[in-house]
């Protein structure tokens, strides 16, 4: 099953490599990963999208917790949460095709952020499945380029607290 995991880490030299090394070294898969500093510049927040059965996800959260630079691990999947990713897509669109494409952009509540005689760049924000659906629709126009962020996630206010990745702190 697909899990979205939030990790709060100390913003230190090499932390990203510790985390990606953990995943590659133990054969866990990373579907997407996004990192940025938090409002406290000493900390960074990562969102990792991964897949695995319960046992693997349990190992992933425990192993993450075990890293000295990791302060908190949250598995969003088990709680009421929102998640979003963003992507820029350059799509071929000439003449009449343009109008057609614009109406699709509208349906997906995406935005055109650049226009040239032969192509448009569209910005799409949304859940993974929405981004996916947009691509499926746009593909017939001819996709020239894609640049995509990892997912970011947050629990809804008032939702029962996300289960901390592992109840116990690592040794």
């Amino acid at each position, binding site marked *: 099953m697909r899990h979205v995991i939030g990790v709060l880490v100390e913003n230190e030299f090499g932390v990203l*490599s510790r985390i990606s090394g953990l995943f590659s070294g133990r054969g866990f898969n990373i579907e997407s990963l996004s990192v940025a500093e938090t409002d406290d510049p000493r900390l960074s927040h990562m969102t990792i999208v991964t897949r695995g059965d319960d046992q693997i996800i*349990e190992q992933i959260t*425990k192993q993450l917790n075990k*890293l*000295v*630079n990791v302060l908190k691990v949250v598995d969003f999947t088990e709680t009421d949460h929102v998640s979003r990713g963003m992507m820029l897509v350059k799509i071929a669109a000439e003449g009449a095709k343009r109008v057609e494409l614009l109406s699709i952009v509208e349906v997906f509540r995406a935005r055109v952020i650049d226009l040239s005689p032969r192509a448009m760049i569209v910005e799409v924000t949304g859940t993974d499945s929405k981004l996916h659906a947009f691509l499926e629709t746009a593909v017939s126009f001819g996709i020239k380029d894609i640049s995509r962020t990892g997912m970011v996630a947050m629990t809804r206010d008032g939702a029962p607290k996300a289960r901390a990745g592992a109840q116990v702190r*690592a*040794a």
Partner: protein
Amino acid sequence: MKKSGAQIVLQSLQIEGVKAVFGYPGGAVINLYDEMPHHQFTHYLVRHEQAAVHAADGYARATGEVGVALVTSGPGATNTVTGLATAYMDSIPLVVFTGQVPTGLIGNDAFQEADIVGITRQCTKHNFLVKDVCDLARIIKEAFHIARTGRPGPVLVDLPKDVLVATTTFEYPETVQLRGYNPTYEGHPGQIRRAVKILLKAKRPLFYVGGGAILDDAAAPLTALATRLRVPVTTTLMGLGAFPEDDDLSLGMLGMHGTYRANMAVTESDVMVAIGARFDDRVTGRIDEFAPGAKIIHIDIDPTSISKNVKVDIPIVGGVRDTLEKILVQVEELSDEAAEFAAGHDDWLARIAKWRELHKLAYIQDDVIKPQYVIERICEMTRGRDPIISTEVGQNQMWAAQFFQFTRPRTWLSSGGLGTMGYGFPAAIGAQVAFPDRLVFDIAGDGSIQMNIQELATAVQYNLPVKVIILNNGYLGMVRQWQELFFRKHYSSTEMAVAPDFVKLAEAYGAIGLRATHPREVVPVLEQVLAADRPVFADFVIAREENVYPMVPAGEPISNMLLV
């Protein structure tokens, strides 16, 4: 007064109570070496950096303290990788200091630069690159703290040359603040209660004890609990010494080369308490047939060890010693139930006794020396003298594990997780440094000993009378055994066609060289070994194709044993 980075490192070591540092100098750490004579620990100059780490590791296993090694940048640092990985797999507390090129040159492919922090990220518990001399004391404090607490492990501290030269005011912090690091020492009381309840209902109980019991100094509560409840105990390779093997409740080692009774007891147990053990594949064999009928209670300080390989019924995350002590208290409180339980599984113990008689560890001593015979004689001749036994890897290691009777913790030093040939000799050197007056043996194979044989010079230089027992079969014996059993006797690259004369070689280094070629020479040679006050190499020319039995073929259930 301001101090240089080099002075800060050395003073910090002193404050940490370090008595021995195993190291090898070079350009990047020359400033450290320059300051060294002014400090109160002894530096042991090894002959290869891998050996420095193994020696620190042997020191740590024998004492329970943090072992310390110091090497230069580049090749010095990369030579430590095998030592770190060995210590990491077996959870041994080490702090290894490496030199590094000046911070301004990092990333420039400077002379003797290696990204050792990057290289060792996956084989250390944690590692640090010190970028500012002002962080140095704090990082060293954290390094020692991380190495020795929780599930212990090696920590590497990389020291750029300019940081060693720069100065600052020195103040060694009293406490550590690591927000992301809080090991759980106390097992959950509810879980402990549940575990006791299940245990006291068992009809075929078993303790399966790993290295965690040694690391957490839990031999005393373990022995008390097992004896009080009459629960039989099997240990892993790493757990040898946690429970006295001369006790009737001891089943010896389990797993691939475990005893018949241990593997059978596992297979038939109804409640198994895993104590500081991690269900390694060499222990479990085919995992879905490991303890198939047992409820499993698992005590471990590392939550990632729990339910990693097998599903556990009652996990208890906590220190092994603390948890066992708490279980003991509860058992005292439930004394009626406990007494009833202890008296209620006579038939189980009788069954185990029968297994013991059915297939003992055995060998036939004919007119060639059998390695098992050598180990048994060493065990007998050193009884009551509290010897320390380190080993290399291969058949020699398994024979030592099987035929030496371990009765005390921290007397067995062996590379279990990584299986590092070349570990035993430097580890024995480290243990002898810690305990100059004890008997320290390295049970070696003719292949393994050649992987760190240069340390003879270290042993001679520091007058460390380590006793190296070479079980010389002229083969990479364990691999040959697999080839014999599973590859049609195709002995591909396992015969050591050329080998040194170990007697002459020892003498060339100024050590004592001895040899036995006939069974009747074994005891006299061992007498000379015991009498020696210098390092000894004793070359026992053994039966070339002797195998280690019992053996469970890899991937089979552990009840499928090839017996003698």
